[in-house]
């Protein structure tokens, strides 16, 4: 059993698996069940100003997309921040933290964009002994219309300003949660760093409509005949989140800024991928909303086995390990040549590789009358589509051509590393 203990911006937890600020962390009952199940930490569901409680819709607040066996692939929600009285939450947070000293407990906050509001709420939570705060600049629905959530997260200057207030009026570690509903994730991350944030967490949910009711002609989830965009999450958003995490991890201005990875983390492998791309820990929501808290057992055993296999002494050995290998397109080796190769013994002759290549790519997979599918090296550009559509894992692989051998497609020898920046077809090279 590998050592999964995690220290994230000084906050200790027995493993790097936290629950994200969301419905599963709205009250002591859920959070304690999560801790009993083995979760390393939670970010308590976002608290707002004291006053009349937040009002949620009483119709459906979640929409989803599914695979054929109703496997939930993506979820969207229009739930707002906690709708329970502030003091109730504060009392519960304090009691839970006292009872679960070894677990991380961070409080998510969202109040209007003025210094007094932030100063006020920070004073109220000081007493809870929570480990830190997370600033919810991410939620794209409801609260954003009132100038909070992603309305702040979309304006880097606001992020910086609010973060500065928080750091000024609190000694707690501060995580800034970023919205993906922007064009360049590096800008808000830079702003958070300038404001003094200890870390960023991302991604929050993505603006979305999951489906349209084709009888009532309204988006789902539908509230009395109308629908609105909600925040999208779950396995479907993971690739988007991974890229945004990597962008921040490798960006010179934000490199080294701790990241809490969020977005479709459902298994130990998802978590490991986020961490390899620079996330110090991960936060999970949709997976537990789908399967319950017990999945953390699989995440713990899976990450532990993986770390043992790799000989990693701590999770820090994994964090950021893939970041140096994330690069820009222009630095990819254009002299690296591979060819698809079909293993005839594992081929089940479905022909998907052939039709995909024939109809939509490079006509590089031939089919014989006996349904034997073979790659035409002289036409194969190594696009990988055949690998991606093949239902048999490892049946089709991409085999690199040895340096010095001739690529039958181009007739050229495979040479040393060379990228676009020095390529003769690059107009800016020619201009020099």
């Amino acid at each position, binding site marked *: 059993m590998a050592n999964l203990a995690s220290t994230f911006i000084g906050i200790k937890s027995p493993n790097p698996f936290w629950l994200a600020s969301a419905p599963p962390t709205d009250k002591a009952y859920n959070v304690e069940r999560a801790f009993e199940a083995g979760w390393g930490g939670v970010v308590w569901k976002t608290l707002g100003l004291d006053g009349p409680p937040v009002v949620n819709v009483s119709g459906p607040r979640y929409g989803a997309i599914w*695979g*054929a*066996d109703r496997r939930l692939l993506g979820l969207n929600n229009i739930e707002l921040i906690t709708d329970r009285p502030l003091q109730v939450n504060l009392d519960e947070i304090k009691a839970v933290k006292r009872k679960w000293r070894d677990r991380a407990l961070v409080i998510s906050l969202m109040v209007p964009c003025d210094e007094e509001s932030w100063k006020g709420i920070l004073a109220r939570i000081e007493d809870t002994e929570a480990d830190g705060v997370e600033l919810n600049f991410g939620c794209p629905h409801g609260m954003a219309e009132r100038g909070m959530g992603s309305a702040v997260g979309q304006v880097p200057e606001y992020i910086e300003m609010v973060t500065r207030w928080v750091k000024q009026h609190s000694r707690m570690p501060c995580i800034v949660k970023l919205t993906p509903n922007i064009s360049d994730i590096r800008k808000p991350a830079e702003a958070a760093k300038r404001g003094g944030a200890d870390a960023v967490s991302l991604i929050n949910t993505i603006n979305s409509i999951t489906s349209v009711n084709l009888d009532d002609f309204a988006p789902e989830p539908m509230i009395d005949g109308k629908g609105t965009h909600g925040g999208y999450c779950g396995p479907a958003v993971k690739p988007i989140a991974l890229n945004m995490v990597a962008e921040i991890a490798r960006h010179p201005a934000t490199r080294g800024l701790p990241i809490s990875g969020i977005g479709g983390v459902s298994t130990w492998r998802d978590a490991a991928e986020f961490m390899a791309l620079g996330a110090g820990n991960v936060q999970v929501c949709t997976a537990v909303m789908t399967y319950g808290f017990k999945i953390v057992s699989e995440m713990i055993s899976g990450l532990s086995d993986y770390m043992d296999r790799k000989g990693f002494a701590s999770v820090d050995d994994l964090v950021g390990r893939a970041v140096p290998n994330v690069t820009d397109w222009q630095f990819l080796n254009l002299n690296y040549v591979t060819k698809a190769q079909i293993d005839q013994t594992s081929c*089940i002759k479905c*022909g*998907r590789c052939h039709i995909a290549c024939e109809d939509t790519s490079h006509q590089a997979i031939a*089919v014989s009358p006996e349904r034997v599918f073979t790659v035409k090296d002289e036409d194969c550009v190594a696009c990988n589509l055949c690998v991606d559509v093949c239902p048999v894992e490892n049946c089709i692989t991409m085999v690199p051509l040895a340096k010095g051998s001739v690529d039958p497609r181009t007739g050229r020898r495979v040479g040393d590393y060379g990228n676009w920046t020095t390529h003769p077809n690059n107009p800016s090279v020619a201009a020099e």
Partner: protein
Amino acid sequence: MSNTSLTPGVVPGRLAAEAYARNFADAAPRLGRHEAMVAADRCYFCFDAPCTTACPTSIDIPLFIRQIATGTPDAAAKTIFAQNIMGGMCARVCPTETLCEEACVREAAEGKPVEIGRLQRYATDGLMAQAGHPFTRAAATGKSVAVVGAGPAGLACAHRLAMKGHAVQVYDARPKPGGLNEYGLATYKTADDFAQAEVDWLLRIGGITLHQGVSLGREVALADLRASHDAVFLGVGLAGVNGLRVPGEDLKNVRNAVDFIAELRQAGDYSSLPVGRDVVVIGGGMTAVDAAVQARLLGAETVTIVYRRGQEKMSASGYEQNHATSSGVRIICNAAPVALHGTGAVTEVEFAHTVDEPGGLRLTDQTFRLAADQVFKAIGQSLVGAPEGLALQAGKIVVDAAGRTTLPGIWAGGDCATGGEDLTVTAVAQGRDAAEDIHASIS
């Protein structure tokens, strides 16, 4: 009645009333919507799909499964019916394990094919339960075609011809239409009178007139049909039953399996059907299995199928054989009957072990006897009363790929003709293709 499985002789009512209902209920009910969605998701939508190639009617299987997967099962049904108007029955009785599902790449990948047959039933049952008919008849052509035999070949031919606008007269010897669909298949495969429901649905195309109880060569002559119609299609099936040609064949309670199966299909009350305590079925095909399994379902204590060659040569598929053995039927191979014993009624069947040699089947001196108070013969059917002038080959009417016989203006298909495999689905294919050729010839 106080009979049980142990009552000697051939008697009815061996089981409790509720057991009959259970035993003869739908063996593989229609998939539910979610089951169908999950099953459909397993289809890889193969290029030039092997399942479609394996289907005698060339149904575009990946397309219909995708139509199910995308929530349009009625469109899936139309895809099926466009190729096979008896797609409903074929979904129930096709030996899919030796056709589409054997060819499924999932069979190669994991030994578990996509459930094509059950998905087909999901789609076809759904559409057939609705009002109307998925095809419309072309404008009347004024041409008339006689179809002899209202089995799968004849009805498939009639439907396609009617769709093209021709007037079709169907002549059939039995009291009810459907042929083997109505008289020759195990009851649990075609529960709830599906065969008649299918005929009624098929006739909704219009332009088809059924004449039941009309037998070729008796009530109607081929020459008259040729004279009064623009074309004739023969789908008369195989009305004769092969004999054992051994002593004792005339003993009481020695019957043709096809008659027993037909009787079961027409029975309103299964408890009134007599069945032996010790039943022996001689043969190795689907008919043998259907008779044997149903004898068990009627309460026979022991049922034994005896086949003269090796198990690998049985024409009943592995799936059918498993079904038989899991129903409590014993299968003995490499044994041929040499005599049936008894005084008045049969009491025993004597078999000789056989050796299958290059020169042919040889009976050895080693014999054994099986107790039998009822014996079913299921060693094949034969063409009887083929009209004069038609060339025959191996006891079947010779046809070309388009279904043309050697006589001008006469087409044939189904079990009575060469080229098929004595399956519902091949009969449908032959009837359909003959109709296309007839249409091309008379238009």
